[in-house]
């Protein structure tokens, strides 16, 4: 072979091999990263392990929300052997899990390893699925662990707790606000898989453990929350409240929320179901029109998820007078000894403003205008403060800012909701109506926080609902300490205001008499406001009835604010319908909190007496024992010993109540028919029932007032009752005070 030929052939070979080396250089050195990441993507299998969501506890570590292990069923379509097995899987799973068979068949067609058939099934069902898979030797059916959220008490504290979505993400309330703490960090298993999807016998498996979520300890007290919810629920039904009712119980010294509720609310286990009667009516009205129904349903769902206390600013009405009064005393523009004359109306800025009492309140001192909730009196107080000072205090009470409570969706404090300093200075009329709580809006949480400051010594606290955040091992990770934002008024003025507010409830001419509880020194203020930006079907402005009560007035501990939004009945005044709700809550919460009752001499004199046990005693001795307790006695029959007594031993009955003693076998019952005693005065009730030989227990508000009437009786009309039985009758003050 000629050398030239050899050179040519070698040259060609070198060109060929050199091209390959260049090509290798490009793929392996220049573009290596691209191919490498693509290769890893197909070779790596990343499995996430969901962490357990933290628990929500009340302040006494009662569980309010908890996650439990459940199972998710998924199939690996590529592992399905043949058409027969596909059919078997679809039929079997659709029967067991109640999933549409067509949908399963559709998922069987996919070319991957993970198609969820059903999420969150309980253990027994999961066991059945596993059994089905093993029985039929199907490797394509798999189950994996997951978490499900449980709210053991149903709709209890629903608006505080919130709820979680499909992937356990917090969507509302604490679940949403503390989602990051509660949800934890998912774990990951990175493993190598071959092209068939099974694991490669390869060493780069990597496991990162999931970190379970932290638990949250609320300031909420399950018991007080229960009292509040029970009272609100009854009030909503009794007063036909159309736009839900809200209530807040706050520790006035710390700003801790002890209870917060809305009625009606929802069940966090099933948050999309609407339960409110009026909402259901509105939904029924659009039934048939699918589009409209869907839209309405969404509106109603959103509404029931709202926590009114923090998301709905409203006109506080007369409850705000507490803050006007406190500001004026602190500023010194008003004194306790000032005198105010109310003629039923007041001229200011060229306009006439009427008092709610058209006849006028006459001449009153400072405590008087608070007790009577006298509008002209407060116009004078406000006017004397001046717009500049009024605004300064308004700001100091925290009403121009959000409270910063640790719940999602807080509203309030935006400048469109209240009057600017300039407006208050310029317009005497605006200042005048603002002084008694009209024409501006605050949220219930802003109001109760401000009033707490007015009565706790003057300190504006930051309200909060989460006390501690606890990790999975029970160690406290974070804890909230009470925070004083600022001192708004002096402690002297604060204690003065507390005692004036106690008189609102305890004085015979006080407007808050319906909240009176013997021994507990309840203070409070009524409020009724018209919703000026809304009209009902009759063209009237719907009302909001509210009451803010606290106790004990000499050392305030808890405050309760209740607002009934759009009650629909004859008497919509806060004094009539909201005050009893607050009273009900305080009456149960104060003994629970260990607040010792301190009775006045007058209260002691009015206290009930416990019936002594005289059973099997000789008649004469029995009579002596009863009269000794200053109770009356009536003996039925001529036997020598007592064989039955009504009321039973230990039952409290009012002083001058009567005990019936039966002495003869065969003559041990004397029944009467229970009459209706609702709507009567105390005197009338007493007469009617004592005439029938029944014992009367009147619930302890000022019974002598002319406007006090009975509203409830413990034994329904028409029931046959034994003579001597104790009938409890509750009274409300029907005095319509704004």
């Amino acid at each position: 072979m000629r050398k030239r030929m050899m050179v040519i052939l070698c040259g060609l070979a070198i060109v060929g091999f050199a091209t390959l080396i260049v090509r290798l250089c490009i793929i392996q050195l220049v573009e290596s990263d691209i191919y490498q990441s693509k290769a890893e993507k197909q070779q790596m299998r990343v499995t996430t392990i969901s962490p357990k969501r933290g628990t929500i506890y009340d302040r006494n570590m009662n569980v309010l929300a908890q996650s439990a292990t459940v199972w998710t069923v998924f199939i690996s379509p590529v592992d399905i052997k043949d058409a027969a097995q596909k059919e078997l899987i679809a039929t079997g799973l659709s029967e067991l899990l109640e999933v549409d068979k067509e949908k399963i068949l559709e998922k069987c067609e996919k070319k991957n390893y993970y198609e969820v058939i059903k999420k969150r099934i309980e253990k027994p069902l999961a066991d059945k699925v596993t059994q089905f898979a093993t029985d039929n030797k199907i490797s394509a059916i798999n189950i994996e662990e997951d978490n499900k959220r449980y709210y053991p008490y149903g709709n209890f504290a629903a608006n505080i707790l919130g709820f979680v979505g499909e992937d356990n993400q917090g969507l509302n309330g604490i679940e949403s606000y503390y989602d990051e703490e509660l949800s934890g960090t998912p774990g990951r298993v990175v493993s190598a898989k071959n092209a068939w999807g099974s694991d490669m016998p390869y060493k780069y498996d990597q496991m990162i453990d999931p970190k379970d979520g932290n638990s949250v300890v609320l300031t909420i007290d399950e018991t007080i929350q229960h009292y509040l919810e029970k009272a609100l629920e009854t009030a909503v039904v009794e007063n036909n409240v159309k736009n839900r009712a809200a209530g807040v119980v706050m520790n006035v010294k710390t700003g801790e929320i002890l209870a917060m509720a809305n009625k009606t609310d929802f069940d966090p286990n099933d948050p999309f179901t609407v339960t409110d009667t009026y909402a259901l009516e509105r939904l029924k009205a659009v039934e048939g029109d699918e589009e409209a129904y869907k839209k309405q349903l969404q509106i109603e769902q959103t509404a029931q998820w709202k926590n009114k206390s923090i998301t709905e600013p409203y006109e506080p009405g007369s409850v705000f007078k507490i803050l006007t009064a406190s500001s004026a005393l602190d500023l010194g523009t008003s004194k306790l000894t000032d005198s105010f004359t109310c003629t039923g109306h007041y001229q200011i800025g060229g306009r006439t403003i009427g008092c709610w009492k058209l006849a006028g309140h006459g001449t009153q001192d400072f405590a008087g205008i608070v007790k009577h909730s006298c509008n002209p009196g407060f116009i004078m107080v406000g006017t004397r403060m001046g717009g500049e000072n009024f605004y300064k205090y308004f700001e100091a009470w925290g009403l121009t800012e959000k409270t910063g409570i640790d719940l999602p969706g807080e509203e309030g404090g935006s400048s469109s909701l209240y009057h600017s300093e300039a407006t208050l200075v310029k317009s005497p009329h605006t200042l005048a109506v603002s002084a008694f709580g009209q024409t501006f809006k605050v949220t219930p949480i802003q109001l109760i926080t401000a009033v707490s400051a007015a009565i706790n010594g003057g300190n504006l606290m930051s309200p909060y609902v989460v006390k501690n955040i606890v990790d999975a091992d029970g160690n406290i990770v974070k804890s909230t300490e009470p925070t004083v934002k600022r001192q708004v008024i002096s402690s002297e003025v604060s204690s003065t205001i507390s005692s004036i507010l106690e008189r609102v409830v305890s004085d015979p001419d006080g407007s808050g008499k319906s909240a009176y509880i013997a021994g507990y020194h309840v203070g409070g203020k009524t409020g009724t406001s018209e919703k000026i930006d809304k009209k009902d079907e009759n063209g009237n402005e719907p009302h909001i009835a509210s009451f803010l009560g606290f106790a004990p007035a000499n050392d305030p501990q808890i405050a309760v604010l209740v607002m009934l939004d759009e009650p629909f009945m004859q008497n919509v005044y806060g004094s009539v319908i909201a005050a009893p709700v607050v009273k009900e809550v305080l009456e149960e919460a104060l003994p629970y909190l260990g607040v010792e009752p301190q009775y006045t001499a007058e209260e002691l004199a009015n206290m009930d007496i416990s019936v002594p046990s005289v059973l099997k005693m000789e008649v004469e001795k029995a009579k002596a024992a009863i009269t000794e307790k200053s109770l009356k006695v009536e003996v039925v029959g001529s036997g020598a010993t007592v064989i039955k007594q009504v009321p039973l031993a230990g039952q409290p009955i009012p002083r001058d109540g009567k005990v019936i003693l039966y002495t003869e076998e065969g003559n041990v019952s004397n029944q009467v028919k229970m009459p209706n005693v609702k709507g009567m005065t105390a005197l009338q009730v007493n007469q009617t029932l004592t005439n029938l030989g029944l014992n009367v227990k009147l619930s302890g508000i000022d019974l002598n007032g002319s406007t006090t009437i009975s509203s409830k009786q413990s034994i329904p009309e028409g029931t046959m009752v034994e003579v001597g039985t104790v009938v409890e009758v509750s009274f409300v003050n029907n005095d319509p005070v704004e």
Partner: protein
Amino acid sequence: MKEKKLVKLKKGPIDLTFLILVLILVIFGLIMLFSASYAYAYYHDGDSFFYIKKQLMWAALGILAMIFFCNFDYHFFHRLAFPIYAVAILLLVVVLFMEPLNGARRWINFGIGTFQPSEIAKFAIIVTFAQLIAINGNKMSTFKYGTLPFVLLLCAIAGLMVLEPHLSGTILILSIGCIMMIAGGTNLKWFAIAGGVLLAIVLVAIFVPGVVDYAMSRIHHWLDPFSDPQGKGFQTIQSLLAIGSGGLMGLGLGNSRQKYLYIPEPQNDFVFAIVCEELGFIGATIIVILFALLVWRGYVIAMRSPDKFGSMIALGCTTQVGIQAILNIAVVTNTIPNTGISLPFFSYGGTALCMLLAEMGIILSVSRYSALEKT
């Protein structure tokens, strides 16, 4: 005759460089075949050693064949050339009656293994062409002696291989044949004419419906394999991912991930992708250089051969190894469109390896005489 004079020459020592290169490639090839095949063998055959066991057996047989042929006077092939060609034709006809595998009839099953007649056909072309070139002498430039017989021999074999069908093998044989003709002295104007005819055929083919679309889609899948990742681009993509994953240093011997069922049949045509993944750019380049050295050494032996016949046999066998290596690696790296050409010494295929080693033995046999001439 001139030929007979050379036959009398005494044998010298074999070309050690060439032998060492062959042995390195055989051992390297076996190691890589084992590494590339064991996952596939485990999952498909339940025995990780399924392929390496067979390959080892054939490699041993091949080494024996190589030893035999390097001690065998290659001049004997003067007489064997046309009988071998006849056997090749016979087997290429027989294979057409075999059960098709993957739509083609390329293998004859003879009990202990399968065998591709195209392997014999390649050698048949090399040996007959060498024979013709040797006896033609100065008549090579004529059409009658220097072109026509070659074209007829090639066409018969290529025609039968197209029937199998075995296009890549046909292209390979045509390439070997053409290079031998050029090196042997066939007048280049015939190639120019053949080229013209080929171009004309291509131009006519453009007007056959479907041909352009088919060609365009082949080119499209070649230039952008990622356009059909699960279908036509799959093998190419998996190969590129393996090569790219290797980087400079590779994942280490045995550590390929792509061999876990991602690359289809990693022991066959795409074994080099696994080499790149495990040994990186450095290892892959070393292998390319080893092939280049082998080709260079083969051509040196051919050049030094004292007679035309030996020279042409050595040239033909060397060219075969060179073209196969270049085309295979070019396919694996997606430098050219996908065709089914295996990598000498590396790809699985016992009979092919055996044949290859036998051919290496013949080249070594040639080298013994060229070494003498030099002294």
